[in-house]
């Protein structure tokens, strides 16, 4: 059973907390791994 988190009310200027994601192969990865530079995060739908 995956643990569900409480929604947050993030605003511009706030610090993003830890965000756990998965790579396409199912490995865990945290959002910070992509923050070597400013990051444009686009939440979309994948259709295959």
């Amino acid at each position, binding site marked *: 059973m*995956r*643990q*569900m*988190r*409480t*929604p*947050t*009310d*993030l*605003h*511009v*200027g*706030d*610090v*993003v*907390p830890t*965000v*756990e*994601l*998965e*790579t*396409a*192969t*199912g490995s865990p*990865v945290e*959002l*910070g791994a*992509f*923050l*070597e*530079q*400013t*990051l*444009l*995060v*686009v*939440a*979309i*739908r*994948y*259709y*295959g």
Partner: protein
Amino acid sequence: MREAYPRIHDLGAAVLTVGTAAGWQAAALMDASRGRAALPFPCVVDPDHNVYRTFGFGRVRWWQWLTPRLWRNYLRAFGRGSRQGKVTGDVGQLPGVAIVGRDRRVRYLYRARTVGDYPPVEALLEALDEGRP
């Protein structure tokens, strides 16, 4: 986003796409296949909706499936060559866009109001340009 990526890169930013769908769909986007070029940025999956909850991206309300705006967005995407494939993940999840600085601070946030509701690319480029050190 694919077309705008060179300009985003020139502004010193990276792109990460996130979806609730299956990992194989994210992998397919990163591979050249079916005559489609690979996306030049990483695609990850979010089965627990962590990104969506963190940034407050909403959900589709039942009546929104009946609104012309939603179907206009679908038709616009269709016109750009997008085609509906296998539906996986959470179809009720709305999209959204965020710009996060290296210091993990949110610089820009756009929460979609319906399916296919994305900010104009020019608005994103402007936000990236304004946030440059």
